[in-house]
């Protein structure tokens, strides 16, 4: 039982590494931001599995904070980016 | 090799990487990021030191240190970044005048 969960966790961790490749490669800023978004969601999923595997239901509070703060970086990215577009024109 | 020792070595590597870049880079923004990575390395050392195995409760005192450290770190980072922005504005106005 716990072995199966651990296996799932290891594979999810490996998909996190896969997503990292897109953050590094880009090429555009939007690509990097999207990849970071996927990594955030995967982290939330990993925390859910860890809460069962480690028998710590409190880990879901951390997942909740990640979930609600996921959009902050994107909003900051887009809101400050618009200013640049304006200046360029 | 114990889990705590493994994560401690990870923390030491973070400290090494961050220190190397902190000293060699001349870009201010990169220096601030290096400082943050350095702090993550120190925090990993403290948290690994607090670890008492998967069953036992961890030592809460280093955890409290790290929490205080995170608050102080985000404050110093904000101050450093405000200084960078100010410096940039000053450079810009000097460029504009000449």
């Amino acid at each position, binding site marked *: 039982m716990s072995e199966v969960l651990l296996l799932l966790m290891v594979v999810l961790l490996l998909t996190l590494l*896969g997503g990292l490749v897109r953050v590094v490669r880009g090429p555009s800023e*939007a690509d990097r931001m999207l990849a970071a*978004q996927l990594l955030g*969601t995967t982290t939330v999923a990993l925390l859910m*599995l860890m809460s*069962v595997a480690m028998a710590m239901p409190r880990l879901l509070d951390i997942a*909740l904070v990640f*979930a609600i703060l996921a959009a902050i970086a994107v909003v900051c990215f887009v809101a400050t980016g618009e200013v640049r577009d304006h200046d360029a024109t | 090799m114990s889990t705590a020792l493994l994560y401690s070595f990870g923390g030491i590597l973070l400290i090494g990487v961050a220190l190397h870049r902190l000293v060699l880079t001349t870009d201010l923004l990169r220096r601030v990021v290096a400082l943050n990575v350095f702090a993550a390395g120190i925090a990993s050392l403290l948290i690994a030191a607090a670890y008492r195995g998967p069953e036992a409760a961890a030592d809460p005192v280093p955890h409290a240190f790290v929490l205080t450290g995170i608050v102080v770190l985000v404050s110093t980072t904000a101050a450093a970044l405000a200084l960078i922005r100010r410096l940039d504005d000053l450079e810009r106005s000097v460029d504009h005048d000449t």
Partner: protein
Amino acid sequence: MTPLEILAIGILFAGLGFFVAGTVGMLRFPDVFSRLHALTKADNLGLALIALGTALLTADTSVTLKLMLIWFFVVLASATSGHLIARHALRSGQGS
């Protein structure tokens, strides 16, 4: 293992499949907009299945409610930020 646990494990593996597919799509698709399409599958269905599997394994009402709340926020945040990123990419010409 009880039949419920086997079911939960099956659901978790299905969720994992969506994350793997999402990551592969993120790596293989040619431009921002098709990568966005890959991302939303992992965000919505992948996380939903992982949350469902976790809920079945813990079988606790408060945990289940919290899992639903987390999933709801992730979907809401990913829909909004996906929209914002796509708009930004379209406007600043980063689409291709």
